């Protein structure tokens, strides 16, 4: 295929090899009024691939809320853009690079990061942060019970998963570190279903002045089209259509030549040169060459601008000799850009790229009439109407079908342990589980402090926080004190059990994390990782998840500004858990008010904020078997009970909103010393982490570490009270002198603020419940389990 010449006669069979169905082929013939040649077929096949055309997801994506008064640019451009005040905007977007990261973990991950960074600076924004949401198969051998059987992870499989993780982490680190953008957050989770289909979702955030935002719309007939950046090679041909738009089989390793290779140094030069070129005012439009390379960039720019475009492949800088038009158009070589400049100002633009040592060549021009014309040494290699190609591709309303209902009963659910169970030991085991344990071993491989804006790096706060320094020199008279907070979240296990509820939790948790850093959540981006859209059950999961996201985003005031859909996440016919990942962006008006999770001072009061205390019946009023059903989906159930079942916790979006507003108000008022939301592992884990973070923040001057003594007075099983993952809750601490202010603010937002304990300098965590010390341990063994177990697991031979 890769050596095909333009002389090959296209047949429906060859079209089928390109993943083009018979109906789609007929549509192509209709648009062209003739049979396509092989280059044209290649172009249609990538443009109409699932990855580029969203043909299966489009009808559902329409249901997402995308508008808001702060949204400057919604979905459809390279990235979403929101107004963050003072004439500044933030561009941000999350994108997947799952399949390449399985085939070749290091390069798959690097090019994932490279692609999303280009999306951001293509908009004219300088990237200031990257987050990565990662999912891997289990990295420890073992088994867990689930509806439908037991899932085992063998030692060999666990070792393979560790190798994939290692490659992915090195790849992310390599690209971001060299490019010079801090990688400051994200999350990592492990489930057996990701064993042969890891998820690598990269989110990038950039800053620009509002009037400097660039769009990818070709304008001005006669304007030159300029190719800049790396030379085009044969790498990554059909990356979008073959790798990203088909499921995996045992032969997938043979797809390695389809994985692109990243060069962060080249991208760094491209960034600086593009931003400098944009400042000349001579650039009309710009589009990066990502998935589907030169094809996608030319066609989309023309389609969006309502113009035509003509390029000559003989002028395209090439790394290899003898490349056919088919190969040049479909290559996914990285670190390339296509831009449209103002006629007569080419020289200015070319000079900027020359200064940065980059190839920049006029390869064509904007034309009238809406045709995308590809010439090759004077011959026409392809001629396609741009708009129908880009916008009138196939759209499928694929059949939906809920999976067969899980027939579970009380006997399938978690059995709360009798009194006398060693909950301290279980807490230690939970803290050591890969999902809960500190990710320090991973995040220390990322440069988290370059650009000197990082106010809260990995693990310091519930969200990653960067200040906005860029603008200071441009803002006359005033210092911008704003900061941005970002969090990515998504619980695949919960989405597997209930995709709608699980997706709502993903939005709520990301927004809650942002609020727990003190920032007001304003917008969201999503990366939707699912199995094959050709399976009705998967489409049902997708549709449910969309409805869940839509409802939660509406309720929490965070419109979706962009993102990406990744289907066909399955290997040997088995789908991953439906895994929508949500990234929420928040604004902190005063960057000195960042909330972190660490307890700060001896004697501070610890409070449990609960936005739901007003509406959800407390645990004593709820039926025991319901508690068990809900608890069966928790991290505790998975780690300690080796059981995944039941339902995700019920969600109350109004309660989530109350808690979010309350946290933002408390942060703005400077009332709190620390804040940490309750998520994986519930209250006990949140308390432990606030202690551990305090230890890390102190310089180890010999005094005992800050610990906590907590007394709980609700009823129900101790395991539920300590480890339940019900939403809308956070643990905060405040000095006694500000207790009244905290409680007054909480009342104002109808959030319960229960005093549950004190920060004590005794180097211990003690939790009393039902008159018993159910957790009682020096911090050090707990901290050691939490801080070092991931490293021990990952560096095990």
């Amino acid at each position, binding site marked *: 295929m890769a050596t095909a010449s333009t002389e090959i006669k296209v047949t429906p069979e060859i079209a089928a090899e390109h993943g083009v169905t018979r109906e789609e082929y007929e549509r192509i013939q209709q648009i062209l009024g003739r049979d396509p040649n092989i280059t044209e077929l290649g172009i249609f096949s990538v443009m109409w691939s699932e990855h580029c055309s969203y043909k299966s997801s489009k009808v559902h994506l329409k249901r997402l809320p995308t508008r808001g008064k702060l949204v400057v640019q919604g979905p459809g451009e390279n990235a979403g853009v929101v107004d963050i005040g003072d004439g500044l905007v933030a561009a941000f977007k999350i994108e997947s690079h799952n399949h390449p990261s399985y085939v070749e973990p290091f390069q798959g991950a690097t090019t994932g990061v490279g692609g999303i960074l280009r999306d951001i600076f293509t908009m004219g924004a300088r990237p200031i942060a990257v987050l990565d949401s990662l999912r891997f198969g289990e990295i420890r051998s073992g088994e867990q019970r689930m509806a439908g059987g037991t899932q085992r992870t063998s030692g060999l499989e666990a070792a393979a998963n560790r190798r994939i993780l290692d490659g992915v982490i090195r790849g992310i680190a390599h690209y971001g570190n*060299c*490019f010079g953008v801090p990688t400051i957050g994200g999350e990592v989770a492990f489930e057996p279903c990701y064993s042969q289909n890891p998820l690598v979702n990269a989110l990038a955030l950039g800053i620009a002045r509002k009037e400097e935002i660039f769009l990818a719309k070709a304008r001005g007939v006669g304007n030159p089209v300029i190719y800049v950046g790396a030379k085009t090679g044969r790498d990554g041909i059909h990356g979008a259509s073959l790798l990203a738009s088909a499921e995996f089989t045992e032969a997938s390793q043979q797809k390695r030549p389809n994985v692109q290779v990243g060069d962060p140094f080249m991208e760094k030069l491209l960034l600086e040169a593009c931003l400098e070129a944009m400042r000349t005012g001579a650039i009309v439009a710009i589009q990066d060459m990502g998935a589907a390379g030169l094809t996608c960039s030319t066609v989309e720019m023309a389609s969006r601008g309502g113009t035509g475009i003509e390029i000559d492949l003989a002028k395209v800088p090439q790394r290899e000799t003898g490349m056919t038009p088919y190969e040049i158009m479909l290559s996914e070589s990285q670190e390339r850009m296509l831009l449209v400049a103002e006629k007569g100002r080419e020289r200015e633009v070319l000079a900027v790229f020359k200064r940065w040592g980059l190839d920049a060549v006029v390869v064509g021009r904007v034309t009238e009439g809406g045709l995308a014309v590809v010439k090759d040494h004077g011959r026409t290699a392809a001629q396609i109407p741009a708009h129908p190609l880009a916008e009138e591709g196939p759209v499928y309303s694929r059949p939906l079908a809920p999976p067969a209902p899980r027939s579970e009963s009380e006997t399938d659910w978690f059995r709360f342990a009798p009194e006398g169970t060693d909950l301290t030991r279980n807490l230690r085991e939970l803290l050591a589980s890969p999902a809960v344990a500190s990710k320090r071993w991973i995040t220390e491989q990322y440069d988290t402090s370059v650009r000197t804006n*990082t106010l809260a790096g990995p693990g310091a706060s519930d969200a990653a926080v960067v200040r906005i320094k860029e603008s200071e020199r441009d803002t006359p008279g005033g210092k911008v004190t704003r900061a941005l907070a970002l969090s990515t979240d998504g619980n695949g296990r919960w989405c597997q059990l209930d995709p709608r509820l699980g997706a709502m939790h993903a939005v709520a948790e990301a927004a809650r994390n942002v609020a727990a850093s003190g920032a007001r959540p304003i917008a969201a981006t999503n990366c939707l990782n699912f199995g094959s859209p050709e399976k009705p059950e998967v489409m049902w999961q997708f549709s449910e998840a969309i409805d869940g996201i839509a409802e939660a985003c509406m309720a929490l005031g965070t419109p979706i500004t962009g993102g990406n859909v990744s289907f066909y996440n399955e290997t040997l016919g088995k789908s991953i858990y439906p895994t929508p990942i949500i990234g929420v962006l928040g604004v902190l008006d005063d960057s*000195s008010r960042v909330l972190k999770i660490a307890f700060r001072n001896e004697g501070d009061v610890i409070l449990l904020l609960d936005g739901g205390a007003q509406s959800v019946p407390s645990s004593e009023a709820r039926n025991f078997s319901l508690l068990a059903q809900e608890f069966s989906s928790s991290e505790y159930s998975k780690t300690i009970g080796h059981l995944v079942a039941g339902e995700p916790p019920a969600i109350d979006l109004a309660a989530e909103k109350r808690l979010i507003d309350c946290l933002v108000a408390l942060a703005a008022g400077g009332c709190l010393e620390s804040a940490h939301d309750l998520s994986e592992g519930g209250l006990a884990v949140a308390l432990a982490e606030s202690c551990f973070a305090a230890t890390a923040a102190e*310089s*180890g*001057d010999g005094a005992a570490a800050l610990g906590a003594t907590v007394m709980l007075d609700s009823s129900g099983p101790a395991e539920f009270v300590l480890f339940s993952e019900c939403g809308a809750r956070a643990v905060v601490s405040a000095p006694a002198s500000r207790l009244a202010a905290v409680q007054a603010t909480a009342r104002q937002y109808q959030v319960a603020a229960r005093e549950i304990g004190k920060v004590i300098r005794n180097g211990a965590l003690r939790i009393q419940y039902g008159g018993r010390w159910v957790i009682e341990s020096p911090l050090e063994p707990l901290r050691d389990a939490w801080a070092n177990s991931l490293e021990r697991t990952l560096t095990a031979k």
Partner: protein
Amino acid sequence: MKFGVVVFPGSNCDHDAFYAIGSVLHQPVEFIWHQSQDLAQADAIVLPGGFSYGDYLRTGAIARFSPVMKSVEKFARSGGLVLGICNGFQTLCEAGLLPGAMMRNSGLRFICRHVRIRVEETDTPFTSAARRGQILKIPIAHSDGCYTAGESTLAELERNRQILFRYTTPDGINDAAGNPNGSMHNIAGICNSQRNVAGLMPHPERAVELALGSADGLVIFQSIVEALVGAAKATA
């Protein structure tokens, strides 16, 4: 008085150094392009961190041949102050302006975290504002930071008191336990025998405000400012 921050293709801490000097210390500062041989009359040159020329081949190995380095070498040999940070330190070693070389970290991974370094000597323009024995909390971010030199070079560095910073623990007691990358003699930073050229792997420009977790790096830039002010007074 003016600072010059060199910009190599692939430098990515150039803006951070510029910000620390210009916006935090309020000193005049200018970028110097790698193809320029004109140092813009700067009185102190900073070679910033990053991945100059992609660091293909070896860290700093290509940067040392860039046009600007000819002028930097001349400037250094005539007594001008040159500070290399991270990739800048690697480049100074490659250029022969500082002895020794940098190898991969002993753990073979990139490491980014706050470390503690102890100020060993204060009779240099880079450390004069610090206290001898002062412990600084400064981040590192590198994969090739394992300082390596031959026995005789190390002995000479020790004898001439050219080791300016050593990795250590927060209490300053256990240097080996505080060594993140396997550097010989726990070396985090050194100067040349004339004491006008210095390099260190940690990033002082990332530790200039408490909001970033530490302001301990300021003392290095303040030392340079004091040295330059002193020199200006002496010639006035």
